[in-house]
């Protein structure tokens, strides 16, 4: 059974994916290890990717079910930001850029294992809701666990993004 879909803008056709989940496919077949694996039950958020512009737990998506879908991982998003190429109709590149920059400037990373998932979730948040209040930010990010930061620096990063988007809107 073959599966054909797009990963980071490039068509992917995987022969004999069998029962592999998307995390296996990304990490083992495509060499995209930025998407991490921890809980395996969709709770921790480390495996968060964008599927058709929406955050999803790659560990719970059988690769065959991604048929015809657009999958974006952190590597693809980072590359898009670095090369200045829009990657989605619903998610503006500037949102992705601001999220990545904010994580750097707010030092919202320690061991880094949760960070790609945090970034993808944050990008999805601001694409859907550019000016979320503190409560909305927390509610959206609630499924992305972090043990190192205590979320304080992550909240600072997301406040920076929210502020930057407001400033742009008002300008």
């Amino acid at each position, binding site marked *: 059974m073959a599966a054909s879909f797009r990963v980071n803008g490039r068509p992917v056709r995987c022969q004999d994916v*069998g*029962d592999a989940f998307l995390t296996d496919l990304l*990490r*083992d077949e495509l*060499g*995209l*290890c*930025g*998407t*991490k*694996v*921890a*809980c*395996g*039950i969709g*709770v*921790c958020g*480390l495996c968060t990717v964008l599927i058709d512009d929406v955050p999803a737990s790659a560990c719970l998506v059988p690769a065959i079910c991604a048929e015809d879908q657009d999958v974006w*991982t*952190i*590597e693809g998003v*980072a590359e898009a930001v670095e090369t200045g190429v829009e990657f989605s109709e619903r998610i503006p590149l500037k949102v992705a850029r601001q999220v*990545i920059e904010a*994580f*750097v*400037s707010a*030092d919202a*990373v*320690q*061991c*880094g*294992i*949760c*960070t*790609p998932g945090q*970034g993808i979730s944050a990008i999805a948040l601001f694409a859907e809701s550019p000016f979320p209040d503190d409560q909305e930010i*927390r*509610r959206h*990010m*609630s*499924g*992305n*666990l*972090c*043990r*190192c*930061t*205590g*979320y*304080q*620096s*992550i*909240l600072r990063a997301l406040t920076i993004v929210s502020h930057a988007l407001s400033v742009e809107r008002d300008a």
Partner: protein
Amino acid sequence: MRLGSSGAKATSGSAGARVGGYDRITGRSVYAGDVRLTGMCHAVVVRSPHAHARILAIDTTEATGSSGVLAVATGADLTRNLFGRRVRDIPLLANELVRFVGERVAAVVAETRSEAERAAARIRVEYDPMDAVADVRFALADLAPRVHDGPWRYVNAAVSANDHPNLQSKKVWQHGHAVEQALAAAAHVFRSTYRVPSRHQGYLEPHVCLAARGLSGVDIWASNKSPYLLREQVAACLDLDQEEIRVHDVAIGGDFGGKGSPMEVPLCVALAEMVGRPVRMEMRYAEDLMAANPSHPAVVGVALGVDHEGRIVALDVDALLDGGAYAGYKPNSEAQLYNVRLAGACYSIPALRIQSKIAYTNTVPKGHIRAPGGLQVNFAVESILDEAARSLAVDPFEFRARNVLRPGERGALGEEWLEVRTDETLRALKPSYDESACERSLRGPDWAAGRGVSLFCQQTHAVSTEVALEPTNSGELAVLVPFPDQGGGQHTVVRNVVVDEVGIPAELVTVRQADQVTLQRDFGVGASRVTVDASEALAAACAGFLAAVGDGGEPPALEDAQGWRAVVVALQKNASITRFVGRADHADAPATVSFCAQLARVQVDLRTGEVRIDEVVSAVDVANVVDEAAHLGQIEGGVVMGIGHALMEDLSIREGRVAAANLGEYKLPSIEDVPRVTVRRIRGGRGVGARNVKPIGELAHVAVVSAIANAVADAVSVRVRDLPIAAEHIFASLVSSQQADT
């Protein structure tokens, strides 16, 4: 090691973004689980469903015949030495006996993980269950089932044949007057018993390793923070020459004390030898929760003697800790937990005794967690202090302030601390504490507000280390260090020190973990020692570098990166030495301790017992801060970890089995659970070494737990003595005290 004083340089506190930060954010950092080798195959483990049983037979025929299977191994196939960080009592695979639910019984190596799992499910193990001891309170009773037969025979065992057969270790620390007499003579004595459950460290990267054996030796990639020690442990277990083993540098996805154990690495290396191909092993998170090395649960009895003026006259701490089925995941030479001795360290205690017994039980083997042993005794001591204060109608803050260790005083166990800043640290909380007095709950008439304080301290451990600076031919300065960065920001600290010492722009400095041949043996990350050791060694290396490039040892007067590049390139081409080595040695390190005071403001719902934390204010005693952001991150992360320990974390080991075996059951705080965290760093402390530094990694989380428990007591007069603090428990206490009133 030089004392931190006028000779020490102040640091700028930041030299730029976190080293490796961008790569982590963009998913480019390579963790052990991301490494792929040609010909790599996968191993999974079959685990015991019994807490204690004899293995009668293992039938592997079906498994061996399964598709994709390369090898199946049992304890009989892999008779190697027992391994451990200090006490060597852990087998690669169980031999004849299983001692805890989750113990490794057999391993299957196959082309893919799926095939290995399918084959593993076909292995039939016949067990003869035996009586198990799952409750540490019975482990040292006369007729308790024996977990081991003659544990004194293990290499580095901390017990003798005269000890109870289920004892892993015991220790008594005493200072001052005889504690029993002091208690007998005290005006007031308060006694209580507190319980702390087993906690998982909560690192989000489960244990994973990849091992390859070839003609050139053994290559290991592992989620382990002590590469040299791992090498030693593997060599000792498999009778290999350390020199043949290379532990490669990888990013590590969190540690918190749990990534120091060799875990499945020795087995992985043995399997790689068996199949002649690289073998990868990754614990599923459920396996990690159930069978890695969580913290020691404890039952801690404490007696506090107080005189008529509210001064402590005696403190007697009796801690019984559950070490689980094996002692081998503890690194301490006495198989004890090094923070237990600091139980009374924040206070002036004329008669102090701390007893610590660690017992074997038929449960998952316990290991280190951030500040090992710290929470177990701090929860007890800070709770009894609070109970005493309330009982004597003394404000708990004042009670502590009256009794804190003062500058110039020897420590509770007679230590000559370099500096004592307990009072300043505690007092930094006073304004917030006073502000939250008599606070009416903003949530409404059914909520009660409360505030609680607590103190903790952590000793700086300086060991030794060696680092090197290598100029590169592109004009950069590569800093080689022997330790990884497990998220604590160690490599960022290293970069900042070099930038400050040398004056070179940050963008020209790279930091990497060297192999184990280039630099001398290093202890690895942990015990709050990296910043101290590394800063000292770096200062020495930088001095050597400056001597070669500068003007009589002073940094060259260069404006920009280009100028520096030219200098470095020239040095790299011309100098007879290609590397500047610096060493740090702990021989004369002064005894240094850092203090942390925590204030928690909570609200309790009187109708349900639910606890909401409104704010945590942390006061932290610091000296020079090498990287402000990384340092703050350690404090904030610690506070939230403490909230987790206080309110929700419990592996729920029942009848020997970990019940909270997935991340839906073992709750880590989520972003919606965290309150406002306010951090006050009390600067100006005396640290250690050329950079005048003190550690931070293990300082912030412990006292938060008792601060919250104390705040709950303040709010609703319910004293929680068993962690975690559950709404149900508070509710039950409220109901029963209401019923008592009617």
